Structure formats: C-alpha cells, structure tokens
C-alpha cells in the first residue's frame, strides 16, 4: 500500500479460457465449457483483489491461468506490463517466479513423501537458484517468515496440522520472492479458529514484502476482511467490481446482492431460514438506503447456476435473477394468450427483453451507488446489469 511505484502489477485483458467438450463416437469437440469468458482485471502493487463467486463461476480457472498452469484460449495477461501469454518457454518459467500460488487444500497440496525442507526448497531446485547462505538456510528463513519452527524442516507434512501445512504452502510460494500471490481459497479447508491465523499471516506478509494478492474465495466475510477491491464472478464473467466497501455496502448487481444476503450472519436476530417467507418485494426497497438489512430476510435464489457449456443468452444471470421478473419492463404487451401467472416458479419467467437478448457491459452506473465512480479512484465501481441499482442488502458483518 505504501509502495513507491504505484500502478498495476498484473493486468488481465479479455481473458478467455474454453475447454473443448468431446462428444460422440468421433470425439469431435462440438461444444466448450466456457470457464472464463472474457475477463479484464487489474491488480495494483501491494493491494489485494478479492475474487468471489460460486463453484463453477470460473474463479479457480482464472487463478490457474494466471499462474500458468493452464494456457488461455485468448486474451492477455500482463505482468509488469509484459504479456506473458506470448512468452517463450524460458520466459514463462521466469514469469512463474513473479506469480505464485497458494492452494486450497493443505492436505493435498503438499507431497506426502517429501519432508518440508524439500517441499519449501523445491522452487530453488527447479529454478536452479542458490540463495545467499545456501538453500538450507533459505528454507529455514522462509519457515520462520511464515511462523514455523525451522527445526521442524525435516518433518513430513502429515506431522503438521492443517494451519501449519498451509503455512508450509505459503513458504513454498514465497521462496522465489514473487510479486503476486494467487491464493485459491487458502483458508476454506481450515478450522475457524485457525483461519484467522492464516489470514493475519497473509496480511503481515503483504505489509512486510509488498506483495499483491489475488484472493479467490467463496467466503465473502474473509474476502471483505482481506481485500481492497472485489470482483464478483458469475458463469465465467465479472458481473460487478469495485472497492470493497462499495461492493459490499452498495452492491449494484442483483447477483451480488443475492450472494451477500445469502451469507449466514453470526447474529441470531438475522434468521437465515425462517419458516415464514415474506414476498421479496416487501423486504427490499430498491434504490433506498434504509429499510432492508438487519432484520430482513435473505434473497434466496432459485436453482443452481446454469451449465457453463451452454450459458444463457444475453445476461448470464437472467435465468436466476430475482430482480428482472419484478421490473416493470418485464411486463409484456397484453396478448390474449398470455398465461395468467407470471410467478417465477410457475415455469414461465418473464424478464425484460433486453436481459435475455443483450449481454450487459461492465460499466459504471453513475446514478447508483453511494459514491458513484469517484474520479481518480483506484478502481471504479462497475456492474454488468442493464438495471443495476443499489440495494441495501443484509450486511456481511457481525
């Protein structure tokens, strides 16, 4: 944050990652899983960008493309201004030193047959780096940096607890002094009382080493705590992006709003699943800054996210959107054959025509939002919705 040179350390432009789906006897690929479908991002030096979304939203694929495990189908990934998707093999290897990854599951991300000293020292071996003072000393320093006892370097992963293993994983990622750490759900496999320790460690390391984090998680509380900026993904696209406070307190996209309201709040006065379900309209006051929130119920979305093989036309969220069917624009012209019911669960969902025809652009909505896009702000608050508007959703806080 107090880095001398500001500016993006990582920039992603129109990144696409499709996986071909082989079908039929001839195994010709007739379709593709559109895991990442045109994403642009920017991560500034010393800052943390939180990437949230449900499983299947493509957030983990994006993380894997960024660290070079997967090759993008198209698009650009700029690290310090250099496009790494066009690099030679040697260049890519060099890039990997700048971008490292912390994995979700500390139980599977460490080779059970290697002692910790070898796991943490492996980056040196792979890149042929000989740190000053020797690899053994460097491993000891790394272990100390992440709060482990260097004396334990000869132990095997199974001799450590989950939180300690995650520290080993972080030490391995830090070995080559990267600029960017891509953290893929780094605490979701840990116990509650240990999660905080790892989050604090990541924050301390950021302050100490000036690291930039891309923090992928489904736990919105954790992201809110650690991230400066937040991007919300749905079906391979970013639907909303902005500074953490803006996205959480003044979410504009109906998906973000639903996501935030579905997060269980550790406050018994907010009943998540009360048996009495009021109609959504009475609990949501569109465009107002008060009313909903604590004491209100959750916006519960119907069904599961659609398949990324065959995403819905137009806005990818329109099939589950709670807002679209309630908009005045969703009312069709009175046609005699018009079915008598337009309840969203009655098999017929009416949404404004624009929602299923046109994909909304990720743009700022000046009318909405508490502050609007501030000039000179590090990241503007943008949302990909034709009808983006602020809604005060139940907060994700104690």
């Amino acid at each position, binding site marked *: 944050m107090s880095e001398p040179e500001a500016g993006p350390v990582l920039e992603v432009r129109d990144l696409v990652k499709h996986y071909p789906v082989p079908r039929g006897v001839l195994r010709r690929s007739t379709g593709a899983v559109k895991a990442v479908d045109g994403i642009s991002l920017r991560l500034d030096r010393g800052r943390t960008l939180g990437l949230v979304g449900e499983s299947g939203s493509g957030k983990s694929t994006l993380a*894997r493309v960024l660290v070079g495990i997967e090759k993008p189908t198209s698009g650009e990934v700029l690290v310090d201004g250099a496009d790494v998707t066009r690099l030679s093999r040697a260049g890519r290897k060099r890039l*990997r030193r700048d971008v490292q990854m912390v*994995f*979700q599951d500390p139980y*599977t991300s460490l080779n059970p047959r290697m002692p910790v000293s070898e796991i943490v020292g*492996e980056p040196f071996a792979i890149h042929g780096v000989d740190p000053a003072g020797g690899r053994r000393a460097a491993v000891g320093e790394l272990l100390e940096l992440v709060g482990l006892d260097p004396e334990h370097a000869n132990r095997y992963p199974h001799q450590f607890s989950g939180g300690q293993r995650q520290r080993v*994983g972080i030490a391995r990622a830090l070995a080559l002094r990267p600029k960017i750490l891509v953290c893929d759900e780094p605490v979701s496999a840990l116990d509650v009382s240990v999660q905080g320790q790892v989050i604090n460690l990541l924050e301390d390391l950021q302050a100490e080493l000036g690291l930039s984090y891309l923090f992928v998680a489904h736990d919105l509380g954790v992201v809110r705590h650690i991230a400066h900026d937040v991007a919300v993904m749905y079906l391979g696209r970013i639907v909303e992006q902005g500074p953490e406070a803006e996205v959480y307190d003044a979410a504009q996209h109906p998906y973000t709003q639903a996501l935030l309201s579905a997060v269980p709040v550790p406050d018994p006065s907010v009943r998540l699943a009360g048996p009495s379900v009021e109609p959504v309209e009475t609990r949501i006051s569109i465009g107002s800054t008060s009313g909903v929130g604590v004491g209100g119920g959750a916006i519960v979305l119907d069904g599961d996210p659609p398949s990324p093989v065959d995403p819905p036309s137009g806005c990818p969220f329109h099939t589950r959107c709670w807002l679209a069917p309630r908009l005045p624009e969703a009312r069709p012209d009175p046609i005699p054959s018009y079915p008598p019911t337009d309840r969203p669960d009655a098999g017929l969902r009416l949404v404004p025509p624009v929602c299923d025809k046109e994909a909304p652009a990720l743009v700022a909505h000046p009318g909405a939002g508490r502050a609007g896009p501030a000039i000179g702000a590090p990241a503007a608050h943008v949302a990909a919705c034709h009808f983006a508007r602020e809604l005060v959703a139940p907060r994700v806080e104690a």
Partner: protein
Amino acid sequence: MNDVGLVSATWRTLRRRPDVIVAALIVLLFAIMAAFPRLFTATSPRACAIREARLDPQGWGTPHPLGTDALGCDVLATMVAGVRPSLLLAFVVVGVSLLIGVTLGLLAGYYLGWADYLISRTIEVFLVVPLLLAALLLLSLFKNVDLGAGTFSVILLPAVVLTLFSWMGYARYVRASVLEAKNLDYVTAARSLGASDLRIMFRHVLPNAIGPVTALVPTSIAAVIGTEAVLSFLGIGVRPPATSWGIQISQGSEWVLGGAPHILLAPLICLVAAVLSLVVLGDALRDALDPRLTA
C-alpha cells in the same frame, strides 16, 4: 541426517512386527541356499539311481532326507540346486518387466494423447497373443544359438519370453495410478513452480503411484516360477542339466496320487514359503517407506 533418520525409523517399524522377522529369515535362508548350496546337501542332484526312485522321506542324517523323485534323484539336492535358477529367473523377470511396465505406464498416464494410445494398444496386443505361441516362435529363433552354461545363460531364454509377457499388468496399474496422482494439488503446485515433466513424474507422481504395483510383485514372482515349468516342456525353460522349482513341481504333480506326494510337496512348500515371505516383506517395506505411517 534425513537418510539416517529414515533408515532408523524403518528399522524401528520393522522390529515391532515379528512376522517380518520370520519372513526376513526365510528369505535369507533361501539366499544362502542359492549362494552356497553345499551347505545344505552333500548329494549331487545329478547322482540319480533309478533303483532308488520314489523313496519316501527318510529323515535328517540319512542319504535322502526328503526322499527321491521319479528318476531316483535326491529331492533335497534337486530342490537346493533349483533355488538359484528359480529365484534368479523370478527376480530378473519381475525386475525387468517392472522397469518396462512402470516406464510405459508412467508415459501413457502422464502424457495421454498419442503416447497413451500407442502404449495402450501395445499392451492389448501382448495380452492377446498367447504366451506359448510366442514362446515357440522364440524357440525356433534361438534353437541353434549356444548360450553357454553360466548362471545367467541357463535362464536367459525363459527370462526373455516371460518378461515380454509380464510387463503389461504393471503398465496398466501404473497408468491408472498416474492418472489419479497427476491431478493432485501437489503435482499442480510443482507445475505452477515451473517444474519439468521429468521432475514431476519422478519426484511427485511416481512415488505416490507405485504403491498398488508393489503389491503385485510377490505374487508375480510365484507366477514366474510356475510358468517357467510350462516353458521347460517346450525346451525353453531353465536349460538342463540345471533344474528349477518349476520343473520339480510339474514333475512332482504327476506322482501326487501315485504314492509319492513328497516329490511335489518339497518344492511347493519352498515356493509358498518364499512367496509369503516376500509378501510380508513387501508390505512391511511399503509401510516403512511411507512417511505417513511412521510416527
């Protein structure tokens, strides 16, 4: 320090299991038998008197402690003489086919694509071609080649034939475990660090994929010894006058109901004891080498 730690930890684990000690002693016994057959019998396996055919076991200290076989040869002497070729053949065949099988299985499972296609089809071809047919073919090829009578020479032909037809199982097992292991997070982690394919294969994938294969080894040793007997009928088994357990077992089986079961039982018991000991040792070794199972 690390190696010493591992070795001493391995020893500690082994010591706690008496079955392992017994198994180790049995294997050691056979090893000594192979190296110094004279320690166990003074009789030559070739000193056969047809008058003394099918004598019952006469007890320790007599000229024929385990009796004689159908040709009057001493059973104990034959058995002791058969240890070296039998075990050598078994270890050579299993060793070489492990090497081939693991390499091909690793390549197929790791790279998939055309490498996998090629290797998988090859495996199927070898599974389809009957062993005996191929053995006959080889026999005709090598009929007039004099291989000499050294320890290796007597087992060379059966070793080649058996190796050709026993690597496929390993390859398949390794391929399957590699497919599983290569998608684990620690492999991805190594890849994201920029590790080379070779490094990933040999440091990360293979050590964690080899487990199920090692369990196959002791029983394959038994299978090799048994199959060698079949080959010996065709004249490409262990070269006479050298003998083997396989030959003894197949000869002895003819006399089980003819009043001389000891001809079969003596080599068979040795084979079972050797294989069971190897099973126990293999298990213990696998447990001991797995850091997760050592305290």
